[in-house]
């Protein structure tokens, strides 16, 4: 038990380090190097390096980059990789294939290294022969790099990278798109609307060809950085439901674009409020509640953008009967796109991890949403559930036979999806009992009817059987609904 616990702690420390590294890259786009946000993040980065050392991760800690992912000892760090597009691109452009961090590293030195890595004028510094001189000038002694070009000092090539999971490139493109446009919005520059629409169009195509890969990745993205993960997942949900709503391809792209940019106004909310861990004070709440109107203002400036995105940014916290925020100057009924995005927004918030709450399972989230049904358009709420089912595509489950599976698509009934058996980590052997890899729940397979025993979230395994009367969750979710008097948004951490 202790051994397993230590392995988990090592994995947590490693993932935390990689997450902080990705965040640090992003932070330097948003803030000056002396900003408190940068400093806090870098100190956390160094803290997680110390944690990694103390939990037994071999030092110096080496991360390698390949197949679109961050790896440690050949194993992909999937969660951190999902939003690491920018870091991976930076490294690829400079032919950096590994970074090695020594435990003596401190926040000031890692900052100097990241500035060197990011600054365009220093691209030459990463050429062979110039690295040592550049690092010497910058005072970088506890970070070393491995380049694609073999050098006498470079470590031997390691080509044992895990192959990228299906949908990874698409997910990273969406995340990159949100990140870059939030930075542009923060600096008051024009958004890259054509790129956004291109990425959304590709995503719609990917969802049509094989939704489970892309949607399955969402369950690995458990850190919400600058609301990027949230925006990506809301867009994926909106595209998934929009596809089922008999709309044209162009209309679907408009819906996906509106969903992806719905929270762009948060780029203008002070980060100390957006990422505050505790409850918001009244004044902070007022600042936070401005983000829908700020988002509409930002999007209004983008002449190429479809106006539905402006309306969605404004309306995604508006509920029927005048509930929600902002209070419009003249009351009106939001459009179908805004009603759908509102449902997606709350569902995503409920089913994702936040520092102050655990992730609900989809059925738990539906229960909370139906309990607060007046907060939603009832037709869209029901249609959303019908399209996603009680076990949405990409959800991880455990079957009554004990095997783990992932939902690959809706079945004939809400509670009987198609599933695919997942081999245990590192085990490539075929499923037991000769069962096919894919089948529909409730249908006999070689005389055995497989049922769902539990739903697996980031941190829980929640049984779905009858008769269990224990309290399953005790976490605040009122905030996710944007009620007055409660934190207006669950995503500001």
């Amino acid at each position, binding site marked *: 038990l*202790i051994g397993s616990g230590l392995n988990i702690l090592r994995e*947590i420390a490693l993932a935390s380090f990689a997450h902080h590294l990705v965040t640090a890259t992003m932070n330097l786009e948003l803030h000056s190097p002396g900003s408190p946000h940068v400093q806090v993040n870098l100190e956390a980065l160094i803290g997680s390096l110390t*944690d990694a050392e*103390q*939990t037994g991760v071999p030092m110096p800690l080496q991360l390698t980059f390949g197949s679109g992912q961050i790896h440690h000892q050949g194993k992909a760090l999937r969660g951190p990789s999902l939003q690491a597009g920018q870091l991976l691109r930076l490294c690829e452009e400079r032919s950096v294939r590994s970074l090695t961090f020594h435990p003596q590293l401190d926040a000031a030195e890692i900052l100097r290294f990241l500035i060197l890595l990011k600054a365009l004028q220093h691209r030459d510094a990463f050429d062979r022969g110039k690295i040592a001189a550049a690092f010497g000038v910058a005072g970088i002694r506890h970070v070393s790099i491995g380049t694609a070009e073999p050098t006498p000092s470079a470590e031997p090539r390691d080509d044992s990278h895990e192959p990228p999971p299906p949908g990874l490139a698409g997910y990273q493109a969406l995340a990159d798109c949100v990140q870059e446009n939030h930075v542009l919005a923060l600096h008051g520059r024009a958004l890259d609307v054509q790129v956004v629409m291109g990425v959304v169009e590709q995503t719609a195509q990917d969802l049509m060809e094989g939704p489970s890969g892309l949607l399955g990745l969402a369950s690995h993205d458990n850190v919400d950085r600058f609301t990027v993960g949230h925006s990506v997942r809301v867009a994926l949900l909106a595209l998934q439901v929009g596809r*089922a*709503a*008999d*709309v044209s391809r162009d209309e679907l792209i408009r*819906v996906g674009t509106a969903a992806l940019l719905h929270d762009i106004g948060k780029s203008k909310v002070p980060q100390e409020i957006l990422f505050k861990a505790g*409850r918001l004070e009244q004044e902070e709440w007022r600042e936070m509640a401005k983000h829908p*109107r700020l988002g*509409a*203002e930002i999007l*209004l*400036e983008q002449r190429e953008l479809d*106006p*539905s995105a*402006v*309306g969605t940014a*404004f*309306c995604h916290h508006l509920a029927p009967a005048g509930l929600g925020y902002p209070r*419009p*100057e*003249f009351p*009106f*009924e*939001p*459009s*179908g*796109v805004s*009603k759908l995005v509102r449902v997606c927004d709350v569902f995503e918030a409920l089913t994702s991890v936040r520092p*102050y709450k655990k992730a*609900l399972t989809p*059925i*738990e989230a*539906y*229960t*909370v949403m*139906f309990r607060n049904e007046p907060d939603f*358009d009832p*037709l869209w709420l029901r*249609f959303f*559930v*019908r399209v996603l089912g*009680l076990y949405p595509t990409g959800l991880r489950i455990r079957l009554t036979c004990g095997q783990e599976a992932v939902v690959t698509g809706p079945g004939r009934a*809400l*509670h009987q999806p198609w599933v695919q058996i997942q081999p245990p980590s590192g085990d490539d052997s075929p499923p037991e009992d000769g069962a096919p890899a894919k089948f529909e729940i409730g249908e006999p397979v070689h005389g055995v009817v497989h049922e769902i025993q539990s739903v697996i979230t980031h941190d829980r395994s929640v049984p779905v059987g*009858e*008769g269990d*009367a224990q*309290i*399953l*969750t*005790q*976490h*605040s979710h*009122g*905030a996710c609904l944007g009620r007055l008097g*409660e934190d207006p948004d669950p995503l500001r951490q």
Partner: protein
Amino acid sequence: LIVPIYVVMGSDSTDGRLQAELHETVERVQRRIRGELQNTSSLPVAMFNACDPMIEAVLAHAASTVFLEHMLTSADLHVMEITGPAVEDVRPHEMQALGRQLAAEDEQGPPSLMGGLTRERLWVLLDLVVKGSAQARIGAATRLHETITEILDPGQLDPMLLGQVASLLQEACLRDDMPSLLRDLLDQAAGQHLEQDQAPGEEKP
């Protein structure tokens, strides 16, 4: 772990004191379990020190959860106000009932996804004209003018929408803070709307 919590629960503490005692109890439990783990494990003590924040967090959560569950069922303690986020329970029977309810409902076609977009655009633009930043007001007023001009296009006239727009603009123009642009738009929209409703030969109001 449970015993000290019951000790706290059994006391007739006031609100503040009870909370202080809870924290103290949690800390005591944390220290004790940590000590026992260290004593019974063959792992170096440094390992526990390294993991300390996580162990503490987990124990604090576990102890608080147990305490809250018992506290909520204890009539003696209902006077204590629970500060912090609201507690929301999701119970299996409620989820199962919802599952059955949804499965039993008739399948309906999709609601209109693209419905109401023009109306939403107008109302949002009008809101931004009034409440937006200085720059947004100018942009919104320009877009509003463009949108209403489109609506007034005789080839695409939607009488119901036009009526709504006329009412909206009329309401907006009654306010003192409306830009003059909106008054012009009201003239256009309301005039056109009235023409739609007016019988031939009838005198214009």
